[in-house]
């Protein structure tokens, strides 16, 4: 466990997810969120890149423009592969030992579920599987150079929030931020890069046997997600998919369950009885389209609820929803 004194250094770390050589949109958004609070909170925003090759200057500049003050490149064999605690945990732990964090903010749809819980356990810190980054009402620093910055997440039953403030907790906080659309480029492309050379673990204990493109990757990264219960009827998924504008991802509630479990969208629409298990973050908006029947509003974690009769009424509602989706295109942007 990192000593308390060091843990309160005002560093905000964003582990960057790289896919096809580029940072994911949620990674850039997470940096942008860090930049948003950096001045008031007095934090330094670090982008942490785990890579098996020398970090490209253009990529570092992109991270700087998205909000990073500095880039910490953890370079070592195998770190270009999709992250696992077994293979990437030691590199991440080397990063937090070099730069003790106040907050570690994983982007949505990436390494957070694999690496976040283990990191929080190692740091003795708090963990939020989907949270918003917030600034406190009081701007007075609570410690030298540290303002009030915290994350807020739903409690599981969505009846209340839980506020995780690293200063109050006297522990670092590890959280996964939502996918929030395009980042605001408020940073600078001129960014310092510090390199940590990582030696691979002597015995990893895991071997890759096969690998294929994840057909559900887009759903995990989506800022706006429509989850369709297959019980709604054949054609609903196809019609909604065809009507979805850029930035809106439509997924089958059953076939897409693994990606839905990882997704942290800003806006969710659950069509049918399944899918309302996604509650997102406190700032997410959840809509539910439910067929008539034994619906229980008290158990529906929806901000907006539409009840429809079965049969033709459901089909007409799907058509109406298809025609309305264009209005959602900008709704994933943070306010």
């Amino acid at each position, binding site marked *: 466990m990192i000593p308390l004194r060091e843990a309160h250094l005002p560093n905000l770390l964003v582990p960057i997810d790289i896919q096809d050589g580029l940072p994911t949109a949620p990674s850039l958004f997470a940096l942008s969120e860090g930049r948003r609070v950096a001045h008031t909170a007095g934090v330094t925003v670090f982008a942490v890149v785990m890579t098996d090759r020398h970090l490209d200057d253009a990529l570092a500049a992109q991270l700087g423009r998205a909000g990073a003050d500095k880039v910490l490149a953890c370079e070592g064999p195998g770190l270009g592969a999709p992250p696992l605690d077994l293979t990437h945990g030691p590199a991440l732990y080397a990063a937090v030992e070099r730069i003790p964090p106040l907050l570690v903010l994983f982007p949505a749809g990436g390494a957070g*579920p694999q690496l976040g819980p283990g990191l929080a356990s190692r740091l003795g810190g708090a963990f939020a599987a989907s949270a918003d980054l917030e600034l406190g009402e009081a701007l007075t620093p609570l410690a030298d150079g540290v303002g009030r910055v915290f994350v807020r997440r739903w409690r599981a039953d969505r009846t209340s*929030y839980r*506020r995780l403030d690293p200063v109050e907790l006297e522990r670092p906080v590890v959280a996964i931020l939502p996918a929030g659309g395009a980042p605001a480029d408020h940073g600078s492309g001129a960014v310092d890069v510090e390199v940590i050379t990582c030696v691979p673990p002597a015995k990893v204990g895991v071997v890759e046997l096969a690998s294929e493109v994840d057909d559900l990757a887009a759903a995990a990264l989506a800022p706006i997600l429509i989850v369709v219960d297959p019980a709604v009827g054949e054609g609903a998924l196809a019609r909604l998919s065809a009507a979805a504008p850029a930035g809106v991802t439509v997924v089958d509630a059953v076939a897409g369950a693994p990606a839905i*479990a990882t997704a942290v969208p800003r806006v969710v629409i659950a069509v049918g009885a399944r899918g309302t298990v996604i509650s997102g973050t406190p700032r997410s908006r959840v*809509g539910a389209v439910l067929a008539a029947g034994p619906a229980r509003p008290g158990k529906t974690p929806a901000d907006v609820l539409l009840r429809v009769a079965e049969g033709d009424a459901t089909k007409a509602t*799907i058509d109406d929803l298809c025609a309305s989706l264009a209005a*959602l295109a900008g709704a994933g942007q943070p306010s």
Partner: protein
Amino acid sequence: MNIVVCLHAPPPDPDGTGLGRDDTHALAQGLALADATDGKMVALLAGTSHESGPLQRALVAGASRAVRLGGEDYASVDFHTLGQALASGIKRIGADLVLAGARSDDEGLGAVPAAAARNLGFAYIARVEELAAAGPRAVEVVVRGGGRKRRLRVDLPAVLSIVGATRALPPPSDRTGNPSEVELMTLNDPETTVVRRRTELLGKPEPASRGTEEVASAAALVTALARR
């Protein structure tokens, strides 16, 4: 192969199955793997006697044993403490492989299996979709991440968190077991007790102020969601 499946008591739900969704998958995967390897599967839960329903379900489904960690109010501890307590129980039971539902802790965090792995010194892999034996000391798993869907061979011992699979597994079948045979295990590990006294549920609860707005059309639903 000795398998321990960590279960959690879900909130009371008259229409529920008495098991968390991911716990159901973890239990089904554990039973299938025990069958395939001529091994044993032990169900483990930290909680009160009133919360032992999932253990009774596990026994009915075919678990070799069902063990309840008792003696403390585990509802008011954080994932660090719960993970440490489960690890202490697992050490006493003995396990090559530990399975847990990915989002089946109180707050849906998925952090308890990681904390248990850390306390056990086991490898940890999150959000496993598929699981199969790969010899006496390894398993094959399917996980997603980094834009890839990968099949991996993982050496044991390991802790795996299980997420609802693409191919839905059937619920555990009613086979054997006596629901009254839930064993009680109390922890007297001084180290665990010290940590339990030092920790508390992390974070400050705040009331939520949002309600549910009912609308009459899909267009109104989209408009309401787009309005921020």
